């Protein structure tokens, strides 16, 4: 029994009206119009090919720089090798599929530990002697709770 019955039963006339309304459905045209709108918005949000190639170039350049710094032969400056402080290994890398961040969107950065092998998914080199199995990463989370970008920390 619902709370609705606590005052008095629903008048029978209202029950007739309620029953007559049960099968009422909005016209299918509403759903079609909304789906068109949804798709057009998704299309507008999707980054253009040029944008993607631009990011790919930036990412490739960042990867190259990281690779050169990490793998270059010869003695390293002591502070680069033995610093107890964690340093940034990469810039933020956008995580695909999600909508882009809005300029004024409130975001949170969460530091997590991930398997080092995850770096491969983002096009980063995985040197066999790179270090421990796990690596720290900063994940940018948007207002909607969806991860938007990641950067790896050494």
């Amino acid at each position: 029994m619902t709370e609705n019955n606590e005052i008095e039963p629903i008048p029978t006339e209202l029950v007739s009206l309620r029953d007559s309304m049960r099968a009422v459905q909005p016209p299918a045209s509403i759903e079609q119009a909304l789906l068109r709108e949804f798709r057009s918005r998704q299309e507008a949000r999707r980054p253009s090919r040029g944008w993607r190639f631009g990011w790919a170039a930036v990412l490739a350049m960042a990867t190259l720089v990281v690779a050169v710094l990490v793998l270059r032969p010869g003695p390293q400056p002591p502070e680069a090798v033995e610093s107890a402080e964690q340093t940034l290994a990469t810039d933020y890398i956008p995580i695909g599929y999600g909508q882009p961040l809005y300029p004024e969107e409130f975001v949170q950065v969460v530091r997590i530990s991930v398997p080092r092998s995850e770096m491969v998914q983002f096009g980063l080199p995985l040197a066999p002697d790179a270090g421990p199995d796990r690596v720290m990463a900063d994940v940018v989370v948007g207002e909607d709770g969806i991860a938007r970008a990641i950067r790896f920390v050494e």
Partner: protein
Amino acid sequence: MRLSELADEHLLTRLLAGDEESFTVLFHRHQQRIFRFSLEMSGSSSIAEEVTQEVFLGILNGDVRHDPERGRLSSLLMGVARNQVLRLIRKDSRYAEDLVGDERPGNGAGDALSELTNRELVESVKRAVLSLPPNYREVAAMCDLEEMDYAEAAEVLGCPIGTVRSRLHRARAMLADKLRPKTPSPSRSVA
């Protein structure tokens, strides 16, 4: 887990991330109640269609922002529908009278006369509901026609549960009065 089993909040997150199927599931979950409530409030199919569309466009636009700590998504959507329908009713008061033409098809069962009688009854109740002041009409539509519990109706209306109870009690009394057969006054019957 199938999408249809996901809670509204998860579907909302997924659709905002661009998942069309989540949008479809969420739409099908709420569209009928929003449409019917708008129709019960306005008596106008065109208003009900406009309200239903606007509610879901609000989600796509990001105008409808849901905070789970402040209530259920279903209540939020009904609240948006309520505001929209009241705005449209105020804008064009002729819709308060435009109710009889919005007949629903019969179910095909029973003989023609009883079907006709039932339809007449339903139409008279529709008229009576639509003639209620909006603050009573909305509680009758939510609690009696859409079978929302008092707590959810209070969430939608932003008022205490006690207010919902008392308004519903008053709405039912007004409806009973409007639907009571009018008997001729004694002086006329004698004459």
